[in-house]
């Protein structure tokens, strides 16, 4: 149990996908303009990440590896994720129209979001079991949510700032992201200190 909590904390804070590992930068910069969209997109990412891991992990362990087809990992995973996102979109449209209106816009963007493919491959590379993989996926998604929500607040302040002409727009947003990323270095070592020996 402690192990799972430590994996969760490491995924959310220490190895934050956006701010430490540079995965999912495009939505981080593109959709973080206001809190509502940032949160909506992130919730969709958490959901798809968990679902994608739940499907790709058994495929890798019970289908690809026993048949000596491990080299097909990349092709199979991206196809499964693309199909899953489509299915989720169709299912939401039919059974939960309210949720679809809130999250539907972001779903197509998620297929090519490197964080989703990244987390499914990272789970396999790290050799996690199924439960740990799921916890790591949800944690990574929550880390993405945290970064998006904080950054949407930062973006609100940037709107009112007056940087040099050449830095207006994207460059100053990247500099702000650098400072946010620097602040996340404060979490270094937190897992080792809270859960010694896990």
């Amino acid at each position, binding site marked *: 149990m402690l192990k799972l909590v430590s994996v969760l904390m490491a995924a959310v804070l220490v190895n934050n996908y956006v701010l430490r590992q540079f995965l999912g930068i*495009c939505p981080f910069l*593109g959709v973080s303009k206001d809190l509502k969209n940032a949160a909506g997109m992130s919730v969709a990412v958490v959901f798809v990440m968990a679902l994608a891991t739940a499907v790709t992990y058994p495929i890798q362990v019970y289908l690809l590896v026993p048949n000596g087809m491990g080299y097909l990992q990349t092709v199979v995973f991206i196809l499964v994720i693309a199909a899953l996102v489509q299915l989720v979109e169709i299912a939401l449209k039919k059974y939960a129209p309210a949720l679809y209106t809130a999250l539907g816009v972001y779903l197509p963007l998620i297929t090519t*979001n490197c964080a989703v493919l990244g987390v499914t491959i990272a789970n396999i590379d790290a050799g996690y079991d199924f439960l740990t993989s799921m916890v790591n996926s949800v944690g990574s998604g929550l880390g993405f949510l945290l970064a998006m929500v904080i950054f949407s607040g930062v973006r609100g302040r940037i709107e009112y700032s007056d940087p040099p002409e050449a*830095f207006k*727009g*994207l*460059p100053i947003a990247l500099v702000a992201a*650098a400072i946010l990323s620097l602040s996340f270095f404060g979490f270094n070592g937190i897992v080792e200190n809270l859960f010694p020996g896990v």
Partner: protein
Amino acid sequence: MSGNGQNGGKPSILLRGLIRENPVLVLILGTCPTLAVSTQASNAIGMGFAATFVLVCSNVVISLLRNVIPDKVRIPCYIVLIAGFVTVVQTLLQAYVYSLYEALGIYLPLIVVNCIILGRAEMFANKNRVADSLLDGIGMGLGFTLALLVMASIREILGSGSWFGIAIPWLRKNGISVLTMAPGGFIVFGCLIALVYRILKRSPPKPEGCLGCPVRDTCVKSKKIASGEEA
């Protein structure tokens, strides 16, 4: 964006990817691998060439198949083709350049979702001839490699005081180590974009909407978002 190169003959198709339409610094595609592997010049070159290989192959094949692939399912088709070529690169690197395979780690399979490759398939290869698509692939690939190399050189020289692993006397002891870490990536990238747009005498793009999405130019939804119909 049209007009500068689209009708300018073969050399301009090849060359515009380097500066004028540099995929990373001007079109702002492929940010994730750019930030992640630009800590060392040697990794940057490796990543650049791996992505260039995939880009050239996918551009040529997609251009060859542009009249065969049904329009409605083109994106999944492109993704399968790209994933296939990425697997080829993964296998080759694992067999012959294992150190690079290790260094690139998870970012190697993630070339599949590198927006530059899907972006060029959608924006160029599916409506141009094979020879042009080949040149476009080489040009854009070299542009990606160049941008990575510049980023990595700045970060490696100032951050760890070496270049391609060769130590630089004074800087070695006085490196700004934060540049090799995550925040350094964001800061160097931001400054480089500001510099490039300054040189091109244009204002930098706004970080909003579908920026960074490879199919933004052909996507109906992105136009709605841009015009404010859908938030």
